[in-house]
C-alpha cells in the first residue's frame, strides 16, 4: 500500500517534469515512433521512452536518417517524432528543404537547445545561432519552450497543428525548461 502510494506520487512527479509531459503528450497524440541521436539533457526522456512499450524508440546514426524514417512512417500511417540536440538540427537543412517541407510531411522535432544560457563550448554557441535562421528561411513553425507551465499546451497544440496542416514543426527545449547542460569539467 505504502509502496503503491510512493509509486503513484513518483509517477505524478515525473508526469509534471518536462520529460514526463513530452512522453504523455506524444502518447495522447498517438506519436509512437521516436528515433533519436542522443543529447545529455534528453537522457531521462530517452530512458523512459525505452521503458514504455507504447513507443518504438531507437538511436539512428544521423538526424537526417531519423527524419527519413519518420517521413516514411507517416506516409505509411504511423506518427513519429525525432529527438536531437542543436548540432543535430544543424545537419537537417537539406532534408527539411527537399523532403519534409515540399512533400508536406509533418515531421515533429524536439531539439534540446545547446549553445546558449551558460554554454561553455564556443562551437556549440555558433551552431546554435544557425538554427532559427534555417527554420525562418523555410517559414517553418517553431517554438522555444522556456516554461514548464506552458509546455503541455505548446507541445500538444503543435503536434495537432503539424498533423492537420501537414507541416513540420520544431520545438526547441530551452535550458530554462530542462536545466540544460552546465560546465562540470
Amino acid at each position, binding site marked *: 500500500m505504502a509502496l503503491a502510494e510512493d509509486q503513484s506520487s513518483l509517477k505524478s512527479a515525473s508526469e509534471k517534469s518536462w520529460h514526463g509531459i513530452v512522453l504523455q503528450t506524444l502518447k495522447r497524440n498517438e506519436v509512437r515512433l521516436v528515433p533519436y541521436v542522443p543529447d545529455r539533457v534528453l537522457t531521462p526522456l530517452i530512458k523512459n521512452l525505452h521503458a514504455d512499450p507504447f513507443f*518504438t524508440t531507437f538511436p*539512428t546514426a544521423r538526424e537526417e*536518417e531519423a527524419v*527519413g524514417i519518420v517521413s*516514411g512512417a507517416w*506516409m*505509411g500511417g504511423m506518427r513519429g517524432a525525432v529527438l536531437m540536440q542543436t548540432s543535430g538540427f544543424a545537419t537537417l537543412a537539406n532534408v527539411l528543404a*527537399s523532403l519534409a517541407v515540399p512533400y508536406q510531411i509533418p515531421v515533429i522535432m524536439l531539439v534540446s537547445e545547446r549553445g546558449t544560457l551558460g554554454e561553455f563550448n564556443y562551437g556549440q554557441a555558433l551552431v546554435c545561432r544557425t538554427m532559427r535562421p534555417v527554420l525562418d528561411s523555410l517559414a517553418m513553425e517553431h517554438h522555444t519552450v522556456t516554461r514548464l507551465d506552458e509546455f503541455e499546451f505548446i507541445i500538444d497544440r503543435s503536434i495537432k497543428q503539424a498533423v492537420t496542416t501537414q507541416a513540420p514543426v520544431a520545438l526547441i527545449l530551452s535550458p530554462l525548461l530542462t536545466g540544460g547542460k552546465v560546465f562540470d569539467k
Partner: protein
Amino acid sequence: MNTATKTPARNTKVMNRFDLTSRLVAKLKNEEAVVGGIGNTNFDLWAAGHRPQNFYMLGSMGLAFPIALGVALAQPKRRVFALEGDGSLLMQLGSLSTIATLAPKNLTMVVMDNGIYQITGAQPTPAAAVSDLVAIAVASGLRSSSWAADEDDFERLIDQSLASDGPTLIGVRIDDKPGTGATRRDPVHIRERFMLGLGVRQPL
C-alpha cells in the same frame, strides 16, 4: 568509366538499372511499396510503369533506405522495396546498422552500383575502386546481403527475400547508362498518391 570492375569481390555481371527495375516491378502483385532514391533510381522506377505504391524522391540524397524503413515499420504486413544508388548509399552507411538492429522482415533493399555519380557527370565515387558495398552491409549486421550474379540471380534473390525472416540487401553491378524516364516533379502529388496507394488516405 567504371573502375568498380577491378574490385575482385564484384566480379558479377554488369546489368542495366532499367531492365532490373522492370523485372522487379513485373513481379509485384500484392501492392508492394517501392521507394526510388534520388535521380536515376526513381526515374527508372517511374519509367518501369507508374504504380500508386511507388514513392519518388526528388532530393534528400541517401534517404531511400531510411524512408523505406519507416514505411516497413508502419506497415509490417506490406512488403517494402527500396532502390538506391551506390553514391547515395555512401551518404548514409550508418542507416545499414539501424536497419540491421530493427531487422524488419518486410524490407528488401537494392543497391544499383555503377561506381559513379552518373547523374552529376559520371564522376567515380570514393568507394568505386576500393570498397565492397555488400561486404559493408554484411559487416553492418545485414546478414542476408549478396551480389546478384546476373539477371536470373537477381530475380531469385528478390523471390528469396519475400520469405526471409529479416531484411535483405541485394547489390547489382550496373552500366553507366542514365535513367530512362523523368519523374514528374510534383512532391505533394507524389506523396498523396503514395498514401492513397498504401491505403492510408481515401480519395477525396
